[in-house]
């Protein structure tokens, strides 16, 4: 039994290294070395999300108007998916505002909005990396003198390799075309 277990462990290890050995596509967002720290305080590279399709957006917690709608839209979109598709994707929202969105703030926001940590990650990164991430995702943002941000609001689908497979700027209600794109991308996965 013990031998069998170690054999299985070895297989798992091998499986892991085989995946890691495959080069990342040049148009993958995961080419960018960004370290994210989630609402659970754990840090990992953005590229560690490779292997599972992701719905990604950027937001900040003190934003009163648009950002709650962005989070709602992610939730709406996920709920609209067929359960077999839904179970294969994760949700990631990265803050524009790392100065104010520390881990505790992200955690209390996630609690307040009842965002299930099994598939929701709210994350922060260092300011220079936030700007880089917005660059690869094609999002724009600008801090105002009062500390608020102006920013573009979009949901972005990354395939398992981190390539941008679809995006939508429909916020506050469901975008059926985006739901369809997710279903197709995950089915191909």
């Amino acid at each position, binding site marked *: 039994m013990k031998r069998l277990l170690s054999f299985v462990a070895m297989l798992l290890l091998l499986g892991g290294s085989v995946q890691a050995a495959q080069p990342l596509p040049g148009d993958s967002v995961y080419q960018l070395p960004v370290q994210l720290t989630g609402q659970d305080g754990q840090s990992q590279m953005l590229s560690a999300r490779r292997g599972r399709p992701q719905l990604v957006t950027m937001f900040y917690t003190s934003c009163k108007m648009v950002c709650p709608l962005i989070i709602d839209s992610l939730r709406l979109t996920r709920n609209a998916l067929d359960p077999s598709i839904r179970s294969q994707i994760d949700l990631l929202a990265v803050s524009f505002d790392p100065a104010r969105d520390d881990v505790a703030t992200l955690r209390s926001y996630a609690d307040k909005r009842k965002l299930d940590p099994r598939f929701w990650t709210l994350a922060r990164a260092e300011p220079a990396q936030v700007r880089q991430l917005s*660059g690869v995702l094609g999002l724009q943002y600008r801090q105002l003198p009062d500390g608020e941000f*102006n920013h573009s609001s979009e949901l972005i689908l990354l395939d398992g390799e981190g390539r941008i497979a679809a995006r939508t700027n429909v916020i506050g209600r469901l975008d059926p075309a985006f739901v369809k794109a997710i279903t197709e991308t995950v089915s191909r996965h």
Partner: protein
Amino acid sequence: MRALALACLGLLLALPAAAAEYAALPGGTFTSVLPADGKAAPAQVAPFRLRTELVTNAEFLAFVKAHPAWRRDKVARILADARYLTQWASADTLGDEVLPRQPVTRVSWFAAQAYCESERARLPSWYEWEFAAAADATRRDARADPAWRESILGWYSRPSTTALPQIGGAANIYGVRDINGLVWEWVDDFNALMVASDSRDQGDPDLLKFCGAGALSMQDKENYAVLMRIAMLSALKAADTTNNMGFRCAKSD
């Protein structure tokens, strides 16, 4: 002794060419063409240092040799588009057509950032760049002078097919050269300039994404030259490269 001398010579040759020069700029309250709050608030610029010269082909070549991940045949497509450094004869030679002291162009924002990091610097912010570019040889802010505006607009009318001049133009009052009239320049927050002045006020979800030029209130509508810079930068994505887009680096004081 001779061996020692040779070793010393080798060491000297291995050292990078003269370190880049940075000029100290005082910063302060600055009336930008882009109001800080989208209405009329002036920009606050902290004291900073700015590279007196644009980054050249020779300097960028040395960077690429030291950081092969940024060779044009190695770079990830998401960090630099297909035109990246294609003016060079090969991935690690300039060739005869490209002069070492011409500003490097066809570099993406990501590549420019990585270069500046190698100089322990960063890209300037838009406000820092605009602050430095407002000066002429004798004045910190020459922008109200029609002659200053004319001279910059004159550059825009120069055909882009002619070869780029080399660096080393006349210095402005801070000692910064070629900031107007040689190439476009990347800034750190290039993708922050045209964001709608208040995205939080918009009720229609279809409009939430982003309202481009129409939503931006420009402070100084006469200053076409600078407004064209903003339009150019805002049209670009971070991986884009163009014939005339170069960069210089900045440091916080």
